[in-house]
C-alpha cells in the first residue's frame, strides 16, 4: 500500500508537469500582452520593459518554462502581474473558501441523495421513487445560477433569514461562515444531489438483482441485514467514485456560483485572473486544481481497495 501511494504520487508529479507545460503553451497562444494590460493607462515604455524583465518575459520561452518549473518545485509560482504578490499565497488564500464550499455542498448532496437514492431503489415504482425521479430531473435541468438567484430572493430577500452573499472564514467565525455558506452550498449541492440520487438508485437496483442478494434472502436474514450488509456494501463501491468526482469538479471552483454569491474561492480567482490577463495567477490556480484532482483520485483508489477485496493495490 505504501509503495502504491508513493508510486502514484510520483506519477502525479509527472502529470502536474504536463499540466504546467500545456498551460504555459496555451498562454503563449492567447493574443494580448499581459504586461500591457496590467499597466493599463499608466503605460510608458520604460516601466513596460522593466516589468517584462522583472517577470522574466524577455528571456527565451524554454528558459522561461524551465525556470517556472524549477521555481514551482520550491513552492514559488511567481508573482501576480497585477498585485505583485506571490502567486502561491494568493492561490492558497483562496483554498479555504473553495474547499469549505465544495465539501459542504458534497456533504449536503450526499445526505440528501443517499437516503433518497437507496429508498427509491428499494421501493422502486412507489410514489417516493417517482418523487425522487422528479427531483433529480429538476436538479439536473434547472440552471444552478437561476436556482441561486431564486434562493437569494427568497431566503435573503423575502424571508431575510440568510445573508444574500459574502464570505466569512470558518476559522474566524464558524456561525458567520455557516450562515454564508448555506445558500451557495445548497445551490451547488442540489445539482450534485440530483446526479448522485440517480446514480445511487441505479447502483442499488443493479445490486438488488444480483444472485447473492437472493442467496442472502434464502438464508432467512432480516431485510435490514440483507440491505445493509449485502446490498449497500456492494452498491456503494461505485458510488464512492461518483461522489469523489463531484467533489473534485467542485474544487475546481464553481465560477458562476462563486461570482453570484461573492464567494472568494478559486473559481472566482480564476475568473478575475482571466479578466486581468494575470497569467501567473491563472497558471497557479490551474496547477492547484489539478493537484487537488490527482489527490482525490489517489484517495479514491486507496478507498476502493479497502472496500472491494477483489482489488489489490500494489
Amino acid at each position, binding site marked *: 500500500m505504501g509503495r502504491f501511494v508513493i508510486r502514484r504520487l510520483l506519477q502525479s508529479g509527472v502529470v502536474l508537469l504536463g499540466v504546467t507545460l500545456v498551460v504555459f503553451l496555451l498562454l503563449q497562444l492567447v493574443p494580448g500582452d499581459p504586461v500591457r494590460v496590467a499597466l493599463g493607462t499608466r503605460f510608458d515604455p520604460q516601466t513596460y520593459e522593466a516589468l517584462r524583465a522583472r517577470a522574466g518575459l524577455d528571456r527565451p520561452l524554454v528558459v522561461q518554462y524551465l525556470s517556472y518549473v524549477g521555481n514551482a518545485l520550491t513552492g514559488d509560482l511567481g508573482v501576480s502581474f497585477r498585485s505583485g504578490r506571490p502567486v502561491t499565497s494568493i492561490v492558497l488564500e483562496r483554498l479555504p473558501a473553495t474547499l469549505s464550499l465544495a465539501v459542504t455542498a458534497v456533504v449536503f448532496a450526499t445526505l440528501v441523495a443517499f437516503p433518497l437514492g437507496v429508498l427509491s431503489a428499494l421501493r422502486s415504482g412507489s410514489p417516493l421513487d417517482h418523487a425522487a425521479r422528479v427531483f433529480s430531473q429538476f436538479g439536473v435541468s434547472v440552471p444552478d445560477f437561476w436556482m441561486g438567484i431564486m434562493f437569494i430572493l427568497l431566503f435573503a430577500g423575502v424571508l431575510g433569514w440568510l445573508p444574500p452573499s459574502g464570505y466569512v472564514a470558518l476559522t474566524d467565525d464558524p456561525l458567520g461562515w455557516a450562515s454564508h455558506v448555506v445558500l451557495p452550498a445548497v445551490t451547488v449541492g442540489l445539482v450534485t444531489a440530483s446526479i448522485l440520487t440517480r446514480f445511487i438508485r441505479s447502483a442499488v437496483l443493479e445490486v438488488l438483482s444480483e444472485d447473492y442478494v437472493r442467496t442472502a434472502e434464502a*438464508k432467512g*436474514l432480516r431485510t435490514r441485514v440483507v440491505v445493509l450488509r449485502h446490498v449497500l456494501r456492494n452498491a456503494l463501491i461505485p458510488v464512492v467514485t461518483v461522489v469523489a468526482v463531484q467533489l473534485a469538479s467542485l474544487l475546481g471552483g464553481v465560477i458562476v456560483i462563486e461570482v453570484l454569491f461573492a464567494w472568494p474561492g478559486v473559481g472566482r480567482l480564476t475568473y478575475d485572473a482571466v479578466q486581468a490577463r494575470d497569467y501567473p495567477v491563472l497558471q497557479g490556480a490551474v496547477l492547484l486544481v489539478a493537484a487537488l484532482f490527482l489527490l482525490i483520485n489517489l484517495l479514491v483508489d486507496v478507498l476502493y481497495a479497502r472496500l472491494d*477485496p477483489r482489488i489489490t493495490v500494489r
Partner: protein
Amino acid sequence: MSDPPVLSVEDLTVTIGTRRGPARAVAGVDWSVRAGETLALVGESGSGKSMSVLAATGLAPRAARVAGRVHLLGTELTALSPDRRRRMRGRHVGFVFQDPMTSLNPVLTVGRQIGEAAEEHLGLTRRAARDRAVELLDLVGIPSAAGRVDAYPHQLSGGMRQRVVIAMALVCEPDLLIADEPTTALDVTTQAQIVELVADLQRRLGTAVVWITHDLGVVAGTADAVAVMYGGRIVEQGPVDAVFARPAHPYTVALLAARPEPGAGGGDLATIPGSPPSPLDLPAGCAFWPRCPVRGDARCAHELPPLVPVSVDHHARTFYRPPREDA
C-alpha cells in the same frame, strides 16, 4: 413411508405480472419430500422448476402471485407472515443455487457468509459463527478449512465456491436442502464431486433434498422420486426406478432419449425439436402437444389431460397409453 413429509406443495400456482400480461410460471403443482429422501425436479429451462421452490418458500419476485398450500414440517407457509416465513428459511430450509460465481457476495469473507445464518437463527455470536463456519468448511471437504474461512469468494475455484454455498445452506442443519441446478455451471469432474458430496451429507445428516436439474443423468443415481415438469405443470412423477423403466409421458420419453451418454458432458436437450411454450400463452391442452412426436390421442390438443396413475405412486398427465411391452 408413513412419516409426514418435510415439505409438501399442493396445487401451487404462480402467476407473474409482466408487461405483456400475466405469466403462468407454475400451474397447479403437487409434490412432497420426506426426511432423508431426494426428490428430483426435472425439466427444460423455463418449465417452472425454480419458481415453484422459490414461491413455496416466500422467495418469489414481488410481481408474483402465489396460490396453493405449502407445508413445511407441518406448518402452512402461505398463511404465515413474511417475517415468520423468513425465519423458517435458512433455519429449516437451505438453498444451493446454480452459479457459485454469482451466488456469493464478493465483498464478504466466505466464513462470514456461512456463519451469518447461524448468527441469525441459532443466536451464535460472530466468533462462534466463525468457528461453526470452519466446521462446515471441513464438512464439505475443503482442505485446511481454518485457513480458508477468511478467504473471499474470488480467491476460490468454482468447485470450492459451490462447496462453500453448500456449507452455507447446511450451517443451521436444515431439515431440507433445495439444490437448484447446483452443478450446471461446473465442469464435469466437479459436477460428479458435488453430486457425491450432497449424497454423502444427506446420508450423514438425514436431510431431505429437492434436487432441481435438467439432466436426467444426475437423477438416476441420486434421487428416490422424480417429478418431470413442463410448461409449469408436472407431466409425470413417481419413484425414479418406475419412471425410468416405464416412462408414460412422451415428454419424459423424449427427455430420457435426449440424456447425454455418461461422461459425454454437456447436458443440453437440444435433441427435442422445438421450444417450450411461453408462460404468457399456454396451450389449452397438453403443453407438450406442439412438440409431441407421438400425438397418440386427439384430446391432447385441446383438453388438459389429468394426472392419472400408471402404477403404484407413478402418475402421468397424458391421455396417451404407451403399448405395454410385457403384454
